[in-house]
């Protein structure tokens, strides 16, 4: 039992402490009520726009995570050198000094040898771990910094394309003004996603206001339950539906926002027969056809209204066409009838949805917001994890987003918005300041990003230095090769000059969260040395050599709980809030904040100077709040400097501890920044061609075929492996979806949430279509085997439901724990990921996103008993 903290255990302690939740990456603002050294309640902080005083079910249950008696309290050292799922690590308690000594010795040796042999890996769930882990890795000298499941699952497609098209990490309807939204596999505002909890309120307001919501999803789960129309489709076929809708809009209805396409996209850029831009021979700029002058001129010299979108032109010897004309022609092959065949969505519905969307877009209309006249396009097509979690990750997402761009519904009033793509800063300091700006060829580069390379301009593919090969596959972010079965083959093939030896892991429980545990275990076991900062002895931490007991969110500090705003700060008009996280309770036992531990390790290994520099960079710290030389700062001192740097000398950590956050009003040109930013976005991904060529030039001589259909500049429908499985009996496409009650694999250990999930009909069950199941003689509640073609299988109880596509098989959450260190979670739910293969064949060859759907056979597990 953990006792109240003596420090506070007085009869007079009664405080409401403003801080930030960390049960998911949403980081909503909270007030923690501490009485006599015990936190008795966590509520939302009404002063903050992040949650507006309300929390999701997980947020209010955070205490049950914090007070879990299974929390780690002392550093542990493994005594059994053998690592494996069934190996008992033989944990032995050690002192912090011993632990840090050993880690520092290993890191010192490694850094002298080859710093690239270190992998820094963290969970997405604790946003606050991003900067400390990235800066530590960078300062150490390793390019290997990863967010475990991160992009592989949530967003190699979503983040890349949101970045290129909206200068943000994700997209969302402008809930304040949108009248018609289409969701392609996203639950934003209804269960999960960015700013999950804030969006719940905003989307409810929008629905109450009358916003129509069409939800394209194989299952009628969260968003679909509230939709005005649920559009069930075959898993992974979103691009087919979206492209057919684009076709109807562009070729049948011809409802197009031409001024937007002319001024804000690369639609007018002339494309030659080689599919590349036709460039000005002198200044190398892409050419457009000037209708007024009747000749080709560099795009930046022509008023956009004079740029041709259609037609065939001759520039010198080159015959060319505007990108838009090519797009329009390209779309013609995606007929509604064809889309019906692929996606099962009736052709008539495809037409109707396209018509509704295009009509409601009110192309050409404007609205006055805060005295500013702005384009008004009250429609939004958004997508996230569901539609882009496939081989066709990039095009699925791009196709959905293309709907917006055809009608000019991008970052204007009522449209599809990037999450806070622009910030002009607090009125007192004008910080934080970032704004999308034009990059090469006039195409947009982000104002703010979260690591790796910015999505555009794409880097140049080269022989890899990164173990994930993202410097070869430059459109990828998180990589399968960190853990895949074919990693060694690929490292050899691409002559990776080293092999990873040490893993510093923060939380991330990749044995559950990435793919089948056998594969992940094999790759984890290869590390010579692994350190894990964790709350519990998770399955993954059981592979570590040293486990360090971290502090919970209620015991930690973070100066930027919701920054960058492009991740988990509500979008749309309103306010910006910059809240902090602060300790409500001191550490328990020997727990130490990971932030302090990393700082100390940098001292022990001897690169504090580099770390200070990396932090200055990463947090954009300016004099006089720059970290100097190798000076030793505590984490709280760094937070203090960060805050002062952004909000003035009088608003340091102490000020924030008292006030919790600072808020200021958003300006229309921040929310609806698109008309104010001199940027274009690519409806034609010309740059993909050279990327594909360059990758192929490296890969193909080494025996790896690069499927070039993935590198075409215009989106297409490319089937998943699961669509190609024709083996009899394999009738279902399995997919996973997030439960509203659980954050990935983490909260299954939270007994309140586990209890609620046990009461939920779907949370721990395998959902299949009632008719389809009955056709196979399966009963509701029956124990079944779900088996893939490769023989991977999981067992669970089925829930017969009418609310799922007849071919779909949905499994919620990221379940299937077996570790003794998480006894509440152990044995709960179904481990979907055990069905997933992890290798080159199962990822998108362009952005490395893992295919998250898999064809399966369902058989009763009861008859055999």
């Amino acid at each position: 039992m953990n006792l109240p903290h003596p420090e506070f255990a007085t009869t007079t302690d009664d405080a409401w402490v403003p801080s930030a939740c960390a049960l998911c990456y949403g980081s909503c603002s909270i007030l923690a009520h501490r009485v006599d050294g015990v936190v008795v309640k966590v509520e939302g902080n009404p002063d903050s726009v992040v949650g507006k005083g309300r929390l999701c079910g997980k947020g209010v249950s955070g205490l049950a995570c914090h007070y879990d008696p299974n929390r780690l309290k002392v550093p542990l050292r493994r005594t059994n050198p053998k690592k494996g799922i069934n190996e008992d690590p033989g944990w032995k308690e050690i002192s912090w000094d011993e632990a840090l000594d050993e880690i520092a010795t290993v890191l010192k040796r490694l850094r002298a040898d080859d710093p690239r042999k270190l992998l820094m890996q963290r969970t997405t769930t604790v946003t606050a771990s991003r900067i400390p882990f990235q800066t530590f890795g960078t300062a150490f000298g390793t390019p290997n910094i990863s967010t475990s499941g991160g992009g592989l699952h949530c967003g190699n497609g979503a983040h890349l394309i949101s970045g290129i098209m909206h200068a943000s990490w994700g997209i969302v309807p402008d809930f304040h003004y949108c009248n018609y939204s289409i969701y392609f596999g996203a639950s934003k505002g209804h269960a999960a996603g960015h700013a999950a909890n804030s969006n719940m309120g905003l989307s409810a307001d929008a629905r109450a206001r009358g916003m129509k919501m069409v939800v394209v999803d194989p299952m009628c789960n969260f968003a679909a339950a509230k939709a005005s129309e649920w559009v069930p489709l075959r898993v992974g076929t979103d691009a087919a539906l979206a492209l057919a809708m684009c076709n109807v809009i562009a070729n049948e209805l011809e409802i197009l926002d031409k001024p937007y396409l002319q001024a804000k996209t690369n639609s007018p850029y002339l494309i030659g027969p080689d599919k590349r831009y036709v460039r000005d021979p002198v200044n190398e700029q892409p050419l457009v056809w000037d209708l007024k002058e009747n000749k080709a001129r560099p795009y930046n010299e022509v008023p956009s209204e004079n740029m041709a979108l259609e037609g065939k032109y001759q520039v010198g010897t080159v015959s060319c066409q505007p990108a838009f004309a090519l797009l329009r022609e390209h779309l013609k092959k995606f007929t509604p009838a064809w889309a019906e065949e692929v996606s099962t969505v009736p052709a008539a519905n495809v037409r109707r949805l396209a018509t509704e969307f295009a009509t409601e877009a009110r192309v050409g209309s404007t609205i006055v917001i805060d005295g500013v006249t702005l384009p008004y396009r009250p429609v939004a097509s958004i997508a996230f994890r569901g539609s882009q979690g496939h081989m066709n990750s990039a095009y699925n997402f791009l196709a959905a987003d293309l709907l917006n761009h055809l009608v000019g519904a991008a970052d204007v009033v009522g449209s599809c918005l990037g999450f806070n793509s622009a910030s002009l800063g607090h009125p007192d300091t004008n910080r934080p300041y970032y704004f999308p700006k034009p990059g090469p060829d006039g195409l947009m580069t982000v104002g703010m990003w979260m690591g790796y390379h910015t999505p555009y301009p794409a880097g140049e593919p080269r022989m890899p230095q990164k173990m994930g090969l993202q410097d070869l596959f430059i459109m990828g972010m998180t990589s399968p090769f960190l853990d895949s079965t074919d990693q060694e083959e690929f490292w050899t093939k691409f002559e990776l000059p080293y092999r990873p030896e040490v893993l510093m892991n923060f939380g991330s429980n990749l044995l559950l969260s990435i793919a089948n545990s056998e594969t992940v275990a094999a790759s984890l076991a290869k590390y010579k040395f692994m350190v894990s900062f964790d709350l519990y002895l998770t399955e993954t931490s059981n592979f570590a050599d040293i486990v360090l007991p971290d502090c919970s969110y209620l015991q930690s500090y973070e100066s930027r709980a919701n920054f960058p705003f492009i991740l988990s700060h509500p979008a749309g008009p309103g306010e910006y809030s910059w809240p902090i996280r602060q300790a409500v309770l001191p550490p328990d036992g020997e727990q130490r904040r990971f932030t302090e531990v990393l700082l100390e390790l940098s001292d022990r290994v001897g690169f504090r100077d580099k770390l200070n520099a990396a932090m200055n960079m990463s947090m954009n710290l300016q004099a006089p709040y720059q970290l100097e030389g190798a000076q030793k700062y505590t984490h709280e001192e760094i937070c203090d400097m960060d805050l002062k740097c952004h909000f003035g000398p009088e608003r340091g950590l102490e000020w924030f501890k008292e006030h919790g956050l600072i808020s200021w009003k958003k300006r229309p040109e921040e929310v609806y920044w698109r008309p104010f930013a001199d940027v274009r976005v690519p409806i034609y991904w010309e740059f993909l061609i050279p990327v594909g060529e360059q990758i192929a030039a490296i890969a193909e001589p080494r025996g790896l075929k690069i499927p070039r259909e993935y590198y075409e500049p215009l989106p297409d429908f490319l089937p998943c492996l699961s669509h190609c499985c024709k083996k009899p009996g394999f009738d279902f496409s399995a997919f996973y979806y997030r439960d509203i009650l659980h954050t990935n694999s983490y909260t299954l250990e939270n007994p309140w949430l586990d209890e609620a999930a046990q009461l939920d009909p779907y949370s721990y069950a395998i959902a299949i279509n009632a008719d389809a199941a009955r056709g196979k003689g399966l009963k509701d509640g029956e124990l079944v085997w779900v088996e893939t073609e490769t023989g991977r299988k999981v067992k669970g109880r089925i829930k017969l439901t009418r609310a799922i596509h007849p071919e779909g098989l949905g499994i919620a959450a990221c379940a299937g724990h077996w570790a003794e260190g998480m006894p509440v979670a152990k044995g709960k739910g179904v481990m979907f990921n055990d069905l997933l293969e992890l290798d080159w064949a199962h990822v998108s060859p362009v952005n490395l996103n893992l295919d998250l759907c898999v064809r399966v056979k369902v058989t009763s597990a009861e008859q055999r008993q």
Partner: protein
Amino acid sequence: MKWGMVIDLKRCIGCYGCQLSCKAEHGTPPGVFFARVLKCEEGEYPSVRQVFLPVLCNHCEDAPCVDTCPTGASFKWADGTVDVDHDKCVGCRTCMMACPYGQRYYNDGDAHYFPKGTTAYEEKMVVRHQRNVVMKCNFCRDRVQAGKLPACVANCPTTARIFGDLDDPLSEVSRLIKDRGGFPLHPELGTKPSVYYLPP
């Protein structure tokens, strides 16, 4: 003055925030829920929907639980709130057989969630509940007395829950019931609930 609640099923997204914020507010033991969220499916594929129904004590005007309680432990405040005086309850559970909405729980289980025993939070918040008596929602009486909204109402991320005076025809609850066709659960039982639902 009669406290009542309106739950807007159009706004509710079945997030369990009410169920869990109530647990957090009151430190209810395992298996005890003053608020719950039920899920069902209505319609046929593809015109089917998951539907969410948050439930809590209806604070019935003609409360069968109060009528049948032999000790007077179950009683009604002047503002219509139905409450249990845990010092009077004998644990006969007659009220549980009387409440047609299944909103009463008998507290005879563990006072802790983790098999390892009580946490500091549970020591303070769960252990204090009297055992072997019946528990239920009391419209967060302490909060309401202190001028705050019930925990589940204050926290609902979608503002689906509205609390107010049913006797006041101008209150938001009264207006919503009137304008949007608010209905109680099982009106045929004649219990006259104070919790109304707005159609999804």
